[in-house]
Structures are given as C-alpha cells and as structure tokens.
C-alpha cells in the first residue's frame, strides 16, 4: 500500500462527496459580502468613467490587441513556464488536442468505440436469433444447470478477488469451482462446463500486463457436483466474441493499437497472436495470419476454433486490419473495419467475410456499394467527406451476407440519415444489392437489430421515441419498410453496472415465436407485447401500465420458457444504479402472456411469487409448486 494506491482508490469514492466538494462554500459567500460593496462601487466608478470618455481616444483606456497578453476566462489553468513538460509522444499518437478536432472526428464517425477498453467492447447483436430460440450459445450465461446441479457466477464485489463459480444443489451452495481469472460467462455443452474470463490485473485492463488476454477453462461434468478441469486456453487480447456450436468453441480476441492510439506495448513484435493450451504455447505460423486491406494500425483479431471433446485447436486465424467490430453466427464470422480519420487521411468501412473453415469468402466494400471514395487524403483542417455508411449489423443466411446500417449525410446544420440494407452474395451473378430508406425522422440511431430467417427487425430511436423498421430479404432482393408504430425508445435496460457483466445489456426484444415479441418499456417500467408478424402493420397488443412490482426494475437477463412464459430478472430500484451489487438482491420473476381469442389484444402478467436468483436456473422453475421465496 502506498500513496499512489490510496489516491487511485479514491476513484471509487461516492459521487455525493465529489458533488459536495464542488459546491460553492459558505465561507466564500461571506468574503463576497465583505468585498462586494467595494467591488460594486469600483464597477460603478469605472462605468461612469468609461461612458464619459470615448474609447481609444486621447486619454482613453487602451486594451492590448494581443490575445496572448490577456488570458481569457476560458483559457483554463495556465501552464507553468518554469516546468515545461514533455509528453512521451509514443503514447499519444492520436489523442484529440482540441475540442474542434474531437468534434470533427465525431462528425465523421458518430459512434466512436474506444477499443482501448477491450473489456467493455462487446460485439454488437450477432448471428441469427430465431424466434423463441435460446441464444445462450452466442453470449453465454451467468447461470446454467446440468442434471440438477446449478452453476452460477456470483457477481460479488470484484475487489474481494473472489474468482469462482458457485455450485448449487436444491438451492444450497455445495461447492465452488475456484478460478484464477474472474469468470465472465458460462457455456454448457455435451457434459462440459466452459468458463470464459478475462485475464487482467484490476478494474481496468492492464494493457502492459504480459498475460493480458482471455482465458477459456473447460470442465468435465461426469460428476456434476465436482467438475474436473480438463483444458485451459489462454489467448492474447481482449475478449471480442465467444460462442459454442456443435461441440466447438469459437473465441475471438482483439489486440493491438486502439482507436485512440495508445499502444499496449512499445515493441511491435509483441503484437503477434498467442495461444496457449494448458500452459504450452500453440504455434501460430505465418499461414494462419492474413492482412485485411491496408491497415493504418497494428491491430488484429485472433480467431480460434477449439474442439471441446479433446481440446484440439482445429483452426485459427489472425487477421490484421483496422478492425472495429466482429459479427458471428454458428459457422461464419465477419470482421468490419472502422471508418477512420487518421493522420490526414480517411477511410470507409469494409466488411470481410469468412466461413466456418475460416476461409475468406469475400469483402463488401461499403464505399463501392455507395459509389464513394473509400479512402482519401485530407488537407490540414479539412473535414472528412460528409457522407458515409455506418454498418450496424451483419448476418448470413443461405450463403448470402446481410448488412444493415445508417447512411449518414452530415451538414453544417446537422444533416440527415437513411436506413440501408445490403445483400451480398459472393458467388451470385449480381453480388451486391443495396436499398436505402429515409425514415420519418431525419436523425435517428439504430438501437438494435433482430435477425429473423427472411427478415430483419430494426429498432430505431431518436430522443425518447422509438420506432421499428423492417428489412425483408429474398435472395439478394431487399425490401425496406418503415413502421408507423412508435414506441418508447429502448436501447438496453440498465442493470447492475458491474464490471465485466457477463451478459451486458438486455436486448429490447424478447422473441416468443409466431411474430410475437415482448419489448421493454421504460416509462412506465414493464413489458409491451407486439405482434410483428406483418411488417406492413405491426401491432402493439399490450402496453405496459407499470407492471413491474413496486420498487423493482428489470435487470439485464431474461429467459424464454415457452411461447407464453418468460423469466425476467428483477433488481430493487434502490440498487439499480449501483455500480457494484451482490447478486442476492435480484430475483427471477415470471411473466405470462395471454392472447385474447381474436389475437388483437393480450394481458401480460407478472407472477406474484418470485424466485431467488442465487442457485436458480430459470429453466428449472417449478411452475406448479409455490416458491419457498428464500
């Protein structure tokens, strides 16, 4: 313990104390009164003097015309001339040295994702989410059950360094799986428990830490009460995506120079993919490395495919490029480069696509799709071109890639946006089809994209108002529709903001099947029911009237039990904004949906009884016996 640690620890001090310390002190007011009268007299005398004497004339007050001679109020603190500070340049290759520079950047690329914080960079909605399907294979869970045994990540205060997965039988904790890496998500497949965690030093990723990376621990559940570790994989880089499909685990990590220019290590040779299996390095030869486009940064995505049965690394590929987003499905993945303004040049996005064998299947150059210059030089002070596409989601169905995004057209007065959808068939006679649609609002943001088999539901929003749009796909043909139905805007439900929350924010939609969706509504807090089976006339069958039990809020997890029953996680209102929280404060609640006979209305009901969250997997809920309400 030293002063540095103490000073650093103050980071977590209560915001109320910070606010209180910034309030104007009472004592200052006394001083003001003491000198205020005198100052007022002085001002009055000065004003009279100024009015009587023409400015700039003989004997008038002369002000310096040199701005540097008279510091303005907005100049902020002045740097001490006696203590010049030389900033290490290698650490700040692309910081924003002025507010204007930052605004120019944002104008070009509205949503900047800071990849330095890889811990926070999660892939956007990825893959296809079939109606009612359990998407745990995509994002993992914090609780899974196997043969009556429940395994759960207990989200305690990470500073206690309690790295373990708790094992429950009949609601009682019977053991733990101790870990040396904080667990982030659990996957379950073929009698195997897979725990994924980030290996880093503390609250923030220590980018200089040698074993900084992502850890995958595989346990055999032959005896469900006593999981036995069989394999440990460690891959360098921040966790970008992980999914389990057909007994295979896919892991994608991102490493390298971040978008803000901070380098993890000084030596570029260290920016090479590294994978270790049970402590032994797995060779990563040159043939498992590719370069996408003409990267401006040393940055790569490392993709590994591991056979969970015997721990074999089936395939791996490291793709160097200006990669900003990763999208994936069961047997494919796509890497999207960022739109960027770097060192007097700009570039637009490209979508690089790969199949399950990690073979490159083609690229969708967004500049070519929209007839724009993909890259270009910028003179000093010149802003980047005002029009550019911004990819928001990628998926693949029947060998055809689908891309949805915003086409941004900036202007000095704000500009407009259009919704766009692209179908890309690398092997087809007409490889690329694109449709654009202007929505009723000029500036909107795509909040979420839900992939169905032949359709995409796009949740958009501006301010507090949300709206739905639809992209219908048939082969490479696209039809875009803007729904007239407006709703409360939902970009994700605030849960316990906990470091490394395994599931992140909940998606606004909970698919029930047959075109029915529950959708979160924040005002009042509850769940609305939508019938989206007909894109041309989406209907709201039920609107929440504040159904959440008093004093509670929805947390970030939900589980579809069947087409009319959903388990949602609730958190006490008082803890909803707490950065840290013990999982025990949450409960699972049951929501049932009852459609009326004509299918034009419905009732959405929260069950009276709630289930404790600890040691309880919602899929095991007994709906017929009363909960013990522990």
């Amino acid at each position, binding site marked *: 313990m030293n*002063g540095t640690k103490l*000073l*650093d620890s103050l980071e977590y*001090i209560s915001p109320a*104390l910070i606010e209180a310390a910034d309030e104007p002190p009472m004592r200052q007011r006394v001083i003001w009164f003491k000198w205020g009268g005198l100052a007022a007299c002085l001002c009055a005398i000065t004003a009279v003097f100024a009015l009587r004497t023409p400015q700039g004339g003989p004997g008038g007050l002369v002000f310096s015309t040199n701005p540097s001679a008279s510091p303005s109020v907005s100049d902020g603190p002045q740097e001490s001339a006696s203590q010049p500070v030389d900033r290490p340049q290698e650490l700040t290759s692309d910081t924003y040295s002025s507010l204007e520079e930052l605004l120019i950047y*944002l104008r070009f690329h509205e949503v900047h994702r800071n990849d330095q914080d890889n811990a926070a960079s999660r892939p956007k909605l990825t893959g296809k989410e079939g109606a009612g399907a359990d998407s745990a294979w995509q994002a993992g869970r914090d609780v899974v059950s196997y043969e009556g045994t429940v395994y759960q990540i207990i989200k305690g205060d990470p500073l206690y360094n309690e790295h373990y997965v708790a094992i429950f039988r009949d609601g009682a904790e019977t053991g733990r799986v101790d870990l040396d890496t904080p667990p982030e998500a659990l996957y379950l497949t073929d009698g195997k428990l897979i725990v994924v965690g980030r290996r880093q030093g503390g609250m923030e990723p220590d980018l200089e830490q040698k074993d900084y990376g992502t850890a995958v621990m595989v346990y055999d559940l032959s005896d469900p009460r006593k999981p036995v570790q069989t394999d440990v994989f460690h891959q360098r880089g921040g966790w970008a995506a992980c999914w389990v499909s057909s007994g295979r685990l896919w892991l994608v990590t991102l490493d390298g120079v971040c978008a803000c220019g901070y380098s993890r290590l000084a030596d570029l040779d260290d920016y090479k993919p590294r994978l270790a299996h049970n402590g032994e390095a797995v060779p990563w030869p040159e043939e498992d490395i590719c370069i996408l486009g003409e990267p401006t940064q040393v940055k790569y995505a490392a993709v590994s495919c591991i056979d969970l049965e015997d721990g074999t690394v089936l395939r791996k590929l490291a793709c160097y490029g200006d990669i900003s987003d990763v999208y994936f499905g069961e047997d494919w993945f796509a890497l999207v480069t960022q739109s960027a303004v770097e060192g007097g040049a700009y570039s637009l996005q490209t979508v690089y696509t790969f199949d399950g064998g990690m073979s490159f299947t083609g690229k969708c150059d967004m500049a070519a799709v929209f007839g724009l210059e993909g890259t270009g030089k910028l003179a000093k002070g010149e802003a980047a071109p005002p029009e550019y596409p911004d990819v928001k989601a990628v998926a693949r169905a029947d060998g055809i890639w689908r891309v949805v995004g915003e086409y941004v057209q900036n202007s000095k007065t704000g500009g407009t946006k259009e919704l766009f959808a692209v179908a890309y068939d690398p092997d087809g006679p007409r490889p690329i089809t694109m449709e654009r649609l202007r929505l009723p609002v000029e500036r909107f943001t795509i909040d979420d994209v839900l992939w169905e088999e032949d359709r995409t539901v796009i949740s958009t929003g501006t301010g507090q108002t949300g709206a739905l749009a639809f992209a219908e796909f048939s082969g490479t043909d696209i039809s875009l529709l803007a729904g007239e139905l407006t709703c409360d805007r939902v970009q994700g439900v605030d849960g316990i903001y906990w470091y490394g929350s395994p599931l992140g924010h909940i998606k606004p939609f909970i698919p029930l099947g047959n075109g029915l969706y529950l959708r979160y509504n924040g005002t009042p807090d509850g769940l609305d029911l939508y019938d989206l089976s007909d894109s041309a006339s989406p209907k709201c069958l039920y609107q929440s009237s504040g159904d959440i039990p008093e004093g509670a809020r929805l947390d970030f997890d939900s589980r579809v039990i069947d087409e009319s029953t959903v388990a949602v996680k609730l958190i006490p209102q008082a803890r909803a904004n707490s950065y840290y929280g013990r999982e025990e404060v949450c409960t699972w609640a049951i929501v049932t949906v009852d459609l009326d006979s004509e299918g034009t209305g419905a009732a959405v009901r929260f069950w009276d009884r709630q289930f404790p969250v600890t040691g309880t997997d919602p899929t095991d809920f007994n709906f017929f016996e009363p909960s013990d309400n522990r």
Partner: protein
Amino acid sequence: MDDSAIIELFLARSEQAIRELDGKYGKLCHSLSYNILHSRQDAEECVNDAYLGTWDAIPPARPNPLLAFLCKIVRNLSLMRYHADRTAKRGGGSCAVALEELEDCLASPRTVEGDLEERELVRLIEGFLDTLPPENRVLFMRRYWFSDSCGEVAARTGLSEKNVSVRLSRIRKQLRHYLEERGVM
C-alpha cells in the same frame, strides 16, 4: 443548461452536448486535470478524451450526477497520463505533492502489502470522511480528489493557506489513526 438536458443531447447524438458539457464543466475539468498533470496541453487532451468517453458512454449510461461521472473520467485519464509521464520524469505537479503527503499517512507499506483491496479502503475512507465536519471533508476532497493545491483550497474556502495546511495535516493524522484502528496499518 441543466444536466438532464445535456444528457438528452447526448442521447440524441447531438454534438451540442459536448459544447454544453464543455461550457458548464470545462473549466472545472481543465482545472482538475491540470492540477494532476501540470501541463495545459496534456490537460486539454485529457479533458477532450473524457468528453469522448462520455460520448461513448451515453447512451446507454444516464449518469446522475453528471458532474461526478465526468470528473471521474477526467481524473482517471489524467492519473493514467501522470503515471505514464512519471516514467520519463519526476513530476512537479500538486498531484505529486499530494501523493507524498499521503505516503506519510500510510508510512508502512509492509504492513498492508496489498491485502486490503481498494474497494474496502474506499469504504473505510468514506467512513472516515463521515466522521469529519463538512468543512474538513471538503478540504480533504479538494486536496486529494481534485488535487487542488493548498493555495487553491484556501482561496476556495476562504481560509488562510497556513490554516488549510495545518488542518490537512491533522486530517491526515486522524486518517492514519483511523486506519490503524481498523488494522489497515
């Protein structure tokens, strides 16, 4: 413009949000960063990076209070920059002096050796601050959170610089005693 209106601008992805944020809290943020870095250029960059961090965080975050949220980002970025800089030079900013003062407060590194986690320490410090009169609490926060110099704290509170220095010295002693009583030292 009040904080909620600024947050609405962020939610609407309006650049005006950053201008309003800068207009309302820019001076405070610059001051906070400058007190740590003692470099106007670095402070400017840290504050702008903090604005970008805020832009990235909202949505989904709706920080309340906005001031504390922003200041924490500024402080974190500034401390990161400070630590990076310190490898190349010994800093002369008030942050370094504040650090040295707190080193005295926790004089025996061997006794703790990292056993106490930061979070617990914060709880203890918050408990300690609860025991202080409001005025002394502000002195502590201004000096060790905002990294204000004793002169700046004095100007803010209307106390003399000497008085601030003496009070802070007593607070540090009290803190040390408080931590010793709880087995931290």
